[in-house]
């Protein structure tokens, strides 16, 4: 049985002797007696690897894996190319730490530099950090970048993912910053309301494209309004759409953030996922987190290093712009391998298929009596419908191994990705029709 120790009890005893000690307890003489754990630890006995394997497989069996998933809302099942998992499971990438020692970490550093470049390309921005925890924290950190002495109020569209909105609010609670929610109209941000809320004290406005309801926002108009008020414009974007949709830069955004889970990361009950943050050169020095830069080594060869560390907590301490001191390097690697494997054509295909398949499902669903689109505008690959008798219909789908849309106050939010075939969608529609007795 093992605690993965490399030494045997005899060896440890010999090492204690070198230290002139008799037992392990001698190592802890400085620990006050009162806090030493007396009895056995309240944990079960050690398990062998075979026991662990059987225990964990049996836990896994208590989860249901759906063969068709029509639910998104911030976590999407896209197809993950085999190259992604095979490459990122390389033990060297898996067990390395933050590349503090550039001379033996060029691989990790270069992979992050490439990630930064790809994120800049997707978003059209100038600078990217080496990733943050997820889309929600990326949004919250972006908001924090925008606060200025006289601009302290943060505007966030109501069409934002509820979790992202909650994260922004929680971060702002920490920093005692006011968050104002900009109301929606017809499933998109109410432009007039935004204009009326913007003012000289506005630090920034955050909007998601496509938004939480899957709707395409008029981001040009929103951006113009924000900039007219002198505030910063933050866009939250889904990278899986950026093979085909306008980039945040084209909309005039100052900062673009998002959740990169769709780029090769499995659903994993919510994590680990990957946040990305890119911005214009003008805001570069405010960008939190790690950044990798190119330089040369002592022989003039190209080299990569962690750079602009003057912003960071280990140097600035309480004056740092953020306390982030790790990135999601392995997830960033995952996204990079995904994007390199797909290429621009593959990513565009993802976008086009998501769009076409979602529109097909929407139109098929809307042929059913009582089912209709809740919002009138353009949507991308998520959409909200009415669905009479929602609970029963979703249960009927579940029984067939189909995870239906997500029940919201506004209706049911469906998501379709390239992973679904037409046959999958037809099956789902047939099950729903059957549930309605048609």
């Amino acid at each position, binding site marked *: 049985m093992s605690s993965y120790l490399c030494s045997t009890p005899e060896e440890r005893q010999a090492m204690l002797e070198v230290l002139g000690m008799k037992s392990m307890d001698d190592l802890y003489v400085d620990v006050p007696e009162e806090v030493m754990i007396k009895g056995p630890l309240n944990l079960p006995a050690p398990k062998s690897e075979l026991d662990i394997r059987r225990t964990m497989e049996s836990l896994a069996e208590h989860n249901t894996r759906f063969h068709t998933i029509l639910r998104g809302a911030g976590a999407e099942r896209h197809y993950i190319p085999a190259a992604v998992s095979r490459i990122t499971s390389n033990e060297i990438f898996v067990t390395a730490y933050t590349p503090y020692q550039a001379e033996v970490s060029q691989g990790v550093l270069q992979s992050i*530099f490439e990630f930064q470049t790809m994120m800049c390309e997707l978003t059209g921005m100038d600078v990217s950090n080496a990733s943050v925890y997820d889309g*929600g924290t990326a949004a919250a950190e972006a908001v924090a970048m925008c606060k200025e002495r006289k601009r302290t109020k943060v505007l966030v569209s109501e069409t934002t993912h509820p979790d992202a909105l909650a994260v922004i609010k929680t971060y702002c609670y920490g920093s005692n910053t006011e968050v104002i929610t900009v109301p929606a109209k017809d499933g998109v941000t109410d432009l007039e309301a935004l204009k009326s809320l913007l003012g000289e004290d506005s630090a920034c406005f955050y909007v998601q494209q496509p938004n939480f309801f899957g709707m395409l926002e008029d981001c040009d108009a929103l951006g113009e309004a924000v900039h007219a008020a002198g505030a910063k414009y933050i866009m939250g974007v889904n990278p899986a759409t950026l093979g085909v949709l306008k980039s945040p830069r084209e909309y005039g955004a100052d900062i673009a953030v998002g959740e990169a889970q769709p780029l090769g990361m499995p659903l*994993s009950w919510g994590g680990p996922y990957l946040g990305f943050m890119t911005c214009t050169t003008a805001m570069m020095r405010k960008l939190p987190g790690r950044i990798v830069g190119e330089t040369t080594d002592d022989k003039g060869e190209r080299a990569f290093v962690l750079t602009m560390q003057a912003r960071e907590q280990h140097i600035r301490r309480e004056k740092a712009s953020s306390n982030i001191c790790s990135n999601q390097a392995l997830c960033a690697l995952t996204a990079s391998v995904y994007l390199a494997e797909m290429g621009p054509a593959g990513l565009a295909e993802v976008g086009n298929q998501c769009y076409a398949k979602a529109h097909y499902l929407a139109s098929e669903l809307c042929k059913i009596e009582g089912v209709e689109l809740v919002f009138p505008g353009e949507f991308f690959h998520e959409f909200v419908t009415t669905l009479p008798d929602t609970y029963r219909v979703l249960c009927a789908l579940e029984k067939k191994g189909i995870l239906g849309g997500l029940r919201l106050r506004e209706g049911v939010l469906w998501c379709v990705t390239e992973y679904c075939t037409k046959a999958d969608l037809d099956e789902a529609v047939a099950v729903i029709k059957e549930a309605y007795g048609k």
Partner: protein
Amino acid sequence: MKLIFELSKPGRGNKVLTPYQTTLNLNPTAEVPAVEIPAAFRRSSAPRLPEVSENDLSRHYNALARRSFGVCDGFYPLGSCTMKYNPKINEVIANLFKFTDIHPLQPKHTVSGCQTVYALAEKYLCGITGMDAMTFQPAAGAHGEFTGILLIKAYHDSRGDYARKKVIVPDSAHGTNPATAAMCGYEVCSIPSTPDGMVDLDALRAAVGPDTAALMLTNPNTIGKIDKNILEITKIVHDAGGLCYYDGANLNAVMGVARPGDMGFDVCHLNLHKTFSTPHGGGGPGSGAVGCKNILKPFLPGSAIGGGGGEQSVGQVKMFFGNFLVVLRALAYLMTLGNSGVREAAQTAVLNANYMKAKMEEAGYVCAYPGICMHEFVLDLSQLKKETGVSALDVAKSMLDHGIHPPTMYFPLIVHEALMFEPTETESRETIDEACAVMAEILKTAKEDPEACHTAPHHTVIGRPDETKAARHPVVRYDFNS
């Protein structure tokens, strides 16, 4: 080596998906009808992603791996980072489809496996920390600190105790502690350490007051010492109405031996990726689980869309429920170690550190603090630098040529020319002996041929990079026009 963009050739196309138009042309009923994305929303030009064959892709990343260094490549005594062995069984488990292919918003009855994973991890980690409840939402250590301090803030706010504006942090603390306090809107009050690296009780007594929100403490601290006065320390803070935050960065030294909860701490974060052996992944993903006593439990975060937060919840610090697959690995690790193994791991980590420290002193190095250390120790090379000009950096860079990852450099800040070693429990005596022999050889070189140390490393794929140039003229993305 080349960047992946430099391997790209237009037209080396996607093989992953059948272009949907192709299927449509072949067999119109097999595919959904084409729908055009409205022009107003379409991007004007494609992102310049690489276009490479899978063969070149594979070689590229294999070359990058060869130019990297993981725990699987050798000894990695990076202080404060707990680079222990990451068990392979945990990776296998974390790759089971019935864990990876589960949507976070599935109905509860379809995710009872995931929920049990969290319930068991909470139970075991509460057993180890002496806390009453735990959240797994935070994604990393600093994120956990942030969450923990927010809990304290929410607690004081819930009592209308708005006067508590200060967080006390020892000068030996990680930079994240003051940064976290600042992010939570607190004023940071730094207090000095005693010459032997402990919290200065008088300074602490002087610092606390009705404006004290919390004390943030790492114990054992960043110089690898356990604070003998820990019960006195937490009492001073509590008596002043403040709460005590335990930075779990160094828990590996005392897990199964002593519990933060019993030391008087109200809340703590754990770095599952350090103490509980989930892999570091080049910097992430990790998990900064936060445990707290019952008084703080009502404030734990939840997910707006997925549920979980109570009425007094501080809100939410990350989407959904945290880094599930990381927690899963940590649980597998905990089950493997079990009640006896957790303590054995801690003890052996401390033993290895003391053994290595003794060997280093024998080799002629000076430790910053005398006496028993916990799971890590700090060398002070200021004397060496004065005598030979060889700095802590030079010594670290010299280690690279011997296949050993250098320790943490220039931390803690209170020691000049610091090198902080943390061997962890998963290293053998032979590995430590070999590393000490290397260190002795480097010391010899430093004295006989300091220039060799100044110019090290000599056998790595690049020499020392120009960091100043990188910072002054940032090149942070590939220039396609270059």
